[in-house]
């Protein structure tokens, strides 16, 4: 029996010890009408060998592409050591560390992770992770509303990833929180401080500030954070953690920093894998820690005074506080966080900065190559990290299809999410791309749209 170790002899002895004649008898408290209707549409069991063959065929059918899509999930090199260690059975097949003494491995990893995230964001504290970046933002919005007390509205700029905005909407809607949009400047592609003026002095719980924003553009975070504080709102930063190796961390935005920082941890060693599992991170000011949802690990000592780690502040959580908990979230993404912690340890501050800088240099080179093609231009003038919006003269969909036929995923078509931008395409280049890849893309694009392609004169000098 697959994964059931019982021998005939065992079963007999066990039934005898229980004092029943058959396993069926153990279900005798269940109304007979409900029992054993079978699973007629379920296929018969496969051996591992058969399953392997099936899955390998399916995986091969999915093929392999040269990918220039980013849009919230980024292709990075993951050192082989990361998953070799994270996949060790002792990490992989453990549950939430409820028995701290038997879970010091997981707990210490989480404490180290919290420290790393707090430091990347330069916030005071971090939790042990949430489901993903989008739901972490929703939790941050709820948290800001709880902490703010009076306001039930939150400013959510149009430069926040559209899927994040939808998720926030799904999650906060039923609690009567209103999300108010803020437009972006059509030239720079980021929120213009002027656009906030109409909201000044009003009762909002928070301003959400993405960095980089959905268009890959960098927001004027200092101004935005200062404006929010001046208007008695919390600043919620939504950041790419890898970018923080070189970008100003939320804790240092403006005169007094953001209040809550969230984001998706996927760039830190988590494979793309069609969308998950990833993990959401959340960090905040000390003063807000009791409003923070999710698990938190603390350092303490044992009866001998030896340092050790344990889940703490559980009084905020549902299994203790039930309907009065800060959130219903119970699970974290422990395994992903383990991988991310190992990833950050292997890269270190310099390594992470080199990855970030290489991404940046690569996207500039890509943009140089692509905008050297007639009829391809940048949509926005704002500074970017590793992603940017291009505008074409013709619809994007057929162009992407033609690129795909060449084995290239050329970026995300914005026709659906941002129709106001015209024929717009969001492209990304990470450190995984080399010069030939970037040239290959440009070469195919030029051919497809039937224009001449003049490679940029200097490799990493961007077109203004």
């Amino acid at each position, binding site marked *: 029996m*697959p*994964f059931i170790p019982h021998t005939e002899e*065992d079963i007999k002895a066990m039934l005898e010890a*229980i004092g029943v004649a058959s396993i069926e008898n153990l*279900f005798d408290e269940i*109304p007979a009408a*409900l029992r054993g209707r079978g*699973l007629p*549409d379920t*296929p018969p069991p496969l051996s591992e060998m058969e399953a392997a063959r099936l*899955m390998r065929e*399916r*995986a091969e059918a*999915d093929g392999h592409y040269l990918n220039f*899509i980013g849009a*919230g999930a980024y*292709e990075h090199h993951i*050192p082989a*050591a990361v998953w070799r*260690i*994270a996949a060790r059975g002792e*990490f992989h097949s*453990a*549950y939430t*560390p409820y028995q701290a*003494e*038997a879970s*010091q*491995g*997981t707990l*210490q990893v989480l404490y*180290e992770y919290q420290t790393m995230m707090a430091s990347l964001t330069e916030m005071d504290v971090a939790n042990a992770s949430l489901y993903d970046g*989008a739901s972490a933002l929703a939790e941050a919005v709820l948290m800001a509303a709880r902490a703010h007390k009076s306001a039930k509205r939150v400013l959510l700029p149009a430069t926040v990833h559209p899927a994040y905005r*939808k*998720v926030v909407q799904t999650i906060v809607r039923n609690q009567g929180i209103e999300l108010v949009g803020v437009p972006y400047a059509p030239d720079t592609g980021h929120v213009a401080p002027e656009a906030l003026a109409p909201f000044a002095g009003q009762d909002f719980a928070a301003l959400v500030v993405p960095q980089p924003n959905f268009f890959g553009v960098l927001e004027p975070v200092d101004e935005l954070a200062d404006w929010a504080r001046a208007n008695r709102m919390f600043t919620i930063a939504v950041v790419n953690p890898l970018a923080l190796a*070189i*970008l100003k961390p939320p804790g240092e935005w403006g005169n007094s920093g953001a209040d809550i920082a969230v984001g998706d941890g996927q760039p830190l060693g988590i494979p793309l*894998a*069609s969308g*998950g*599992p990833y993990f959401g991170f959340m960090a905040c000011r000390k003063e807000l820690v009791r409003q923070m949802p999710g698990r938190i690990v603390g350092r*303490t000592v044992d009866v001998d005074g030896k340092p050790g780690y*344990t889940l*703490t502040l559980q009084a905020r959580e*549902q299994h203790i506080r039930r309907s*009065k908990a800060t959130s219903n979230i119970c*699970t*974290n993404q*422990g395994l*992903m966080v*383990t991988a991310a912690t190992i990833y950050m340890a292997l*890269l*270190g*501050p*310099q390594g992470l900065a*080199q990855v970030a*800088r290489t991404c940046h*240099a690569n996207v500039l080179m890509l943009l140089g190559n692509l905008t050297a093609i007639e009829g391809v231009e940048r949509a926005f003038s704002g*500074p970017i990290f590793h992603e940017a919006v291009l505008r074409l003269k013709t619809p994007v969909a057929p162009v992407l299809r033609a690129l795909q036929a060449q084995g290239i*995923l050329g970026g995300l078509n914005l026709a659906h999410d941002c129709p106001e931008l015209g024929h717009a395409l969001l492209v990304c280049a990470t450190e995984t791309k080399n010069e030939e890849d970037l040239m290959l893309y440009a070469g195919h694009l030029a051919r497809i749209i039937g224009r001449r392609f003049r490679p940029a004169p200097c490799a990493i000098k961007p077109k203004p």
Partner: protein
Amino acid sequence: MLIFELSRRGRRNPTQAPAAVPEVSAIPESLRRSRPPLLPEVSELDAVRHYTALSQKNFSIDTHFYPLGSCTMKYNPRACDALAMLPQFLARHPAAPDDTGQGFLACMYELQETLKEVTGMAAVSLAPMAGAQGEFSGVAMIRAYHDSRGDAARTEMLVPDAAHGTNPASAVMCGYTAREIPTDRHGNVDLAALGAAVGSRTAGLMLTNPSTLGVFESAILDIEKIVHGAGGLLYYDGANLNAILGKVKPGDMGFDVIHLNLHKTFSTPHGGGGPGAGPVGVNAKLAPFLPLPLVALEKGGYRLLGERAAPLSIGRLSAHIGNAGVLLRAYVYVRLLGAQGMRRVGEFATLNANYLMAGLKKAGFEVAFPERRASHEFIVTLKRLKEETGVAAMDVAKRLLDKGFHAPTTYFPLLVAECLLIEPTETESKQTLDAFVAAMKEILAEARADPELVKKAPHTTPVRRLDDVRAARELDLVWNPAQGE
């Protein structure tokens, strides 16, 4: 030793970083970071050795019997893992066109179909990323349903007092008031109290069945009538589905909405606390509200459906598709088991629980509901032991660690005093269960002969009993270079 304490300034792993590139002149100075983050600077060997050593400080299914009630810690087949991590699956971008993921989407679609079959529901969405998010989605659908009918008076969600804490918390997340329903002395929902509580304000009832008390609500069909009779909907918390997998379908019991914990019943690895996956199933009338995306089979191809195809959906729960990799593992698991294998899960999980309960009774332990069958789990109460010896449930739990067993769930559900909620699962052998009973018996003897030994346990773990009060009072959540070890 923390990884930060191993760090030395200037230590590098050049193999892991791209060659140095010039500073990022195209980013204005004011947007750049001025000092490096406090990440460790260690060698690859340091990191591998450190995290390998940490892993060895964990109990896990791969190393220990782990009868953590309500958590279904069973063997996670290695095949599920290996096949979900095939390079092409790992490399695929979530926003890549559907036609680049037909193999992956086929698995998702078939998983959706299997879950419908297994639960007896009309439609399933794989979107929720954990049980609690499944609950949220389910309750949100209940609300969307009532709202769609203009039935705005329903502001209360009924929740038995034995329910998992996520149930009332999820109800509140959806804007409901959670109203508790008491449990009777046999561990069932108190039908009279339920009858008294339902009414026009009732949005629904959230039920776990078998309940977290380890017994099956045998009056489930009466409950169904009471709730539906009052116009409420019935929500099934599927965290305990392992008890009845392949034997009984929630849909047949009359549930309108359910969530499943794939990381429990479908054996995806728990990973030290996650990731999980909490698909939701609904009957036909709630289908339009399912969270997005859904996987459809159209003209021979698989496609993700979004807002346009499902305008009444409660919406999205994650930036992409949910915990895809967890879903893939669960898919392989159901394929390895097949119909008969799934049926056996429920049977043998139940056999193991009842056998273990009988063994512990015989060893002198008091079970909470001795007149009842155990489902896949059951409760031992140590109230009397505590009175006699001062040894509490937590002490017994800690002492089990010394004997090489992970502790059962302690002090949950809250309504049974000094309780241990014990769930052996179907993948453990009779020998292991016998060894567990023997260890519990030893502890009972120790508690009587030398209570301090038990009260001071554990003695053999990497750290001894930790000071939780200090952890919460003197918050130390982030290491600070100044503080040292």
